[in-house]
């Protein structure tokens, strides 16, 4: 029983089982609602939400996946892939972005593997990105506008969070 549709406030009350999952972060209300108020096209839901935004200047104009998660009951059915593709599509076709990026905990091996399968590469390591404790990986996938896929050539050295252009 799956339908992908736009996320709405009531969905915050519907996805308890997803949020209780230890790999899913439950953000504060203003975080969710700021995304809804600013980038509603980047906030969809199937059996769990995908949220993101579009930002940047010039060739850094890109879609960003802030969070994607699927309810445990519906895992291993490639739903996350569908949600990711949707966001990539919006970034590519509607917003004409150069690439899509995301951050993931360096220890979250299952997620990293999944993103790699979807065509993302580890662009750079961000030292102590998560609450000053754990490193994050900045993963990227070039979109059609970045013909030479320049945006996803990995950086050789890790960066610190204050070197990041966007949060």
């Amino acid at each position, binding site marked *: 029983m799956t339908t992908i549709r736009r996320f709405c406030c009531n969905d915050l009350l519907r996805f308890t*089982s997803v949020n*209780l999952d230890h790999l899913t972060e439950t*953000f504060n209300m203003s975080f969710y*609602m700021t995304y809804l108020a600013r980038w509603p096209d980047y906030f969809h839901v199937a059996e769990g939400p995908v949220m993101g935004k579009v930002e940047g200047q010039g060739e850094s104009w890109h879609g960003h996946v802030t969070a994607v998660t699927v309810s445990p009951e519906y895992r291993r*059915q490639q739903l996350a892939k569908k949600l990711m593709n949707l966001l990539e599509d919006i970034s590519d076709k509607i917003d004409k972005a150069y690439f899509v990026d995301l951050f993931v905990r360096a220890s979250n091996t299952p997620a990293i593997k999944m993103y790699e399968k979807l065509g993302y590469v580890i662009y750079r390591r961000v030292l102590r990105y998560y609450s000053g404790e754990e490193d994050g990986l900045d993963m990227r996938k070039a979109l059609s506008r970045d013909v030479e896929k320049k945006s996803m050539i990995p950086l050789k050295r890790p960066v610190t969070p204050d070197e990041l252009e966007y949060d």
Partner: protein
Amino acid sequence: MASKFGLAGGIPERRVRPIWDAIDSRQFKNALKHSTALLAKYPTSPYALALKAVILERMGKFDEALSVSLNAKELLYKNDSNLMDDLTLSTLQIVFQRLDHLDLATSCYDHACGKFPNNLELMMGLFNCYVREYSFVKQQQTAIKMYKLVGEERFLLWAVCSIQLQVLCGNGGEKLLFLAEGLLKKHVASHSLHEPEALIVYISILEQQAKYGDALEILSKLGSLLMIEVDKLRMQGRLLARQGDFAAAAKIYEKILQLSSDDWECFLHYLSCLLEDESSWCNGATDDPIHTKKFVDCKLSHLTDEVFDSRILDASNFVQKLQADTSNNFLRCPYLGNLEIERRKLLYGKNNDDELMESLMQYFSRFGHLACFTSDVEKFLLVLSPDKKTKFQEKLMGNSSSLSTEPIKALGQSITLLKIQELIGNMYKLPVVVSLKSYVILKLPVLPLELESSAVQMLEMYLKNLPLSKDLDLQESMHGEELLSMASNVLVQLFCRTRNFGYFMEAIMVLEFGLIIRRKFVVGNNACTCGRCGRYVWQYKILLVHLYSHLGALSLAYEWYKALDGKNILMETVSHHILPQMLVSPLWMDLNNLLIDYLKFMDEHFRESADLTFLAYRHRNYSKVIEFVQFKERLQRSNQYLMARVESPILQLKQNADNIEEEESVLESLKSGIHFLELSKEIGSKSLTFNEDWQSRPWWTPTPEKNYLLGPFEGISYCPKENLVEEREANVRRVVERKSLLPRMIYLSIQSASASLKENLKVNGSMSDQNISSELKHLLGQYAKMLGFSLSDAIEVVMGVSKGQKSFETFGADMIDWLDFAVFLNAWNLNSHEVMQPNVDGSGPCTWHIVNSLLKKCILERIGSMESHICSPQSDLPSLVQLVTEPLAWHNLVMQSCVRSSLPSGKKKKKSGCTDQSPLSHTVRDSIQSICGLVEEVAKWLKHHINRSEDENLDIILSSVRRDEGPGRIFQILETSNATINETELGDRISQALKSWSPIGVAMKIIRGQRTVLEKFLGICESKIKSLQALQHQMAQV
């Protein structure tokens, strides 16, 4: 903030920057220093004053901040026009908002806009003020002014949204929508529309007026604004269907399914259109957007047989085409479509159950291994008759020999078989155990015939399949994890049916075992203590929260609840797992934290919600504006929020009830309970919302009010978790209504007791004797009414029960409320003497005696019934705690008030009637003695249980699961699970986890958890004894 610079009120930026920098870095003292210097140079600058107010407010000096802001406001009004800038206004606005004086901020902007009527920036500021105040009409008026001034589309949409808000969330009639439509129509004619969200709002305005044709016309004209094709088609399909043009709508839905063939909702719409069934678009179809119904309504088609057949054929062909077109093995929708077609045919009388069953079998062979299989087919099973359901299950079992050869798939399928058995309710009908003989005769292939073996089978299946998860990352769910939750549920059922405590203990053990398997281990086999690793398998934790609560080990339940990390919005959806139990527990500190965190979360959202709404306005996402306001309202009407608002002060009152002075200061901070009276009055007319996630609750307690383990097992079958909201709503309303009277009644009772002994009552404007009496009488009347009686009848009831003429059963489930009533009745009678009086010598019946004897009977009865606390789940402990911390505590306050007023002190003269000989004095003394003795009894009982040796308790627990008959099989498997570990097969992580498993450790944890609760309660009792002894001592001096 630091970026908001410019020339403000004529002050150069370089002078202002250090102040903002200091504020931003929270160096408020430093900021204040700079501000003083700035004010020395610009003493009459409103901006300089506003800055000072910002600093003072951040420092927590609210009164000073308000007075400085008011000065700034005054100067702003007086000053020359060139000083009326947006920066000053927005700075003042920040302070006023944080001080909860939105009206003052609004009046500043209003004044400014009056002075500079064509200043767009100021008008936007004013609009923002109205957004914060939820003044939809004013918002509309301001937006229209802006629109007239510059003609921009966005301001028109601001006005239109404001109109929609008046209709949806205010008092505006639907006629206003016509006005909005007119405004949009005119604008479109001259300027068209440029924002996708503007189109969405325009269409929703038309749709709300049922002008579907017009909406479709607009959509065809401006639809290109919607960039996501499917979104546009969905809108078009819905409008056509609502217009009644089902054929065209079906075509559109077909298109959507061709673009995205896994869209289940769209398929349902498609089929409804083909069968001309409008039920999914009727109003009310989305009444409860949170708890979606499992059963999708559909109206039986009015079509002729021929038409029905041909439409169904179209649908079947289309579904087959979708199936053929996809190579994606995960696509469920086209196959579910098949089931839905069969379901409709069945409902229409076009086929029999067998065809639907056949389709279900096919669905099983394709998707039976998926975890979502059972929830996918639930609604289809619902239309089968009970016999057919069983037949379906048997058919599935018959096929069980042909399970997949792939082990993970086969495991998934086996789990599904068990889940189906649970779902159709057959699990509830199985006998507890059957004789070996009948077992052999029946030779059931997969599923055992009796419950106990079911649980054993689940656990064995889990253990057997552990190697499948060997290479999984610790963070990934393991294969077969749900088997342990299911086994635990079966064991609870066994407990429920046999009342054999061992099964209950086993239900706990399997879950604890599962959690150990998923724990991370670091060097030396120590379990990792980092917060994240403790969060795995929330399903087990929730079940444990309830099992431990039921067992009286609430501190343990709370530990697991905390491990769920239920923060932010989860506080609204998952608190119900623990909050109701905590409200009647002695774990006051933990309860306080729960309530504070929850209320803080909700109140913070209410504070920031308007700013987020304005953000949506600014980013032209108009549909979100409406959504945000509606969502805020939904949360404001949350039953849990209302409950927490009442329970939080009651907790404070309980915590301070041993000291009348402290209690009085709590009451003062609660404005003597007056606001809560308002809440009690309002609640009747409020429609409450229920945002809790019920799905995660165990079957035996589908709502906090229901606990099937308490009652007889008979009659429990498959427990549908629906239709419970109505019952809950009435219950919550009653509880809130009643509890919100408490603070005021406690306040009045203290006053009344003291007034009965004081000579001069009108000191410092305090209430007069008569007012206290009449208000308390009025509230007693209300309270009695809530209990279902008139005041005089309620008095009869308590008198009857206390004298033993009526049984305690009369109180029913409202025992605590009845005792509270008796306490307040006594306090009122002290002053009004309306009920009865003791004899001159203090003997004979009086309301004091009623309260004392009721408390005594209730408390002693509870103590007597709880001989063995350790293995008697859901004992009377919560009600004993309530008796001591509520009615007894309030009664103690009445006594404290009496004693205080009787004491000779300084200038106060004793009332002549209150000498050592006064009957009242005697009665109070006797009461103190009686109540003190009663609490001492409770303390004695508690100490007896606390001091029992751990070994003795451990023996009780272990002997419940190490028996020759009944429970024990599960425990034995668990106990020996780490005896032979094949490390190569299981891998290092799982092997280590298994080695660390200790059932005795779990039993010890339970014993300590229960003891913690008893110790906390003992602490409360000891404090009460101390307070009562002090009273006795004081009385001796009278």
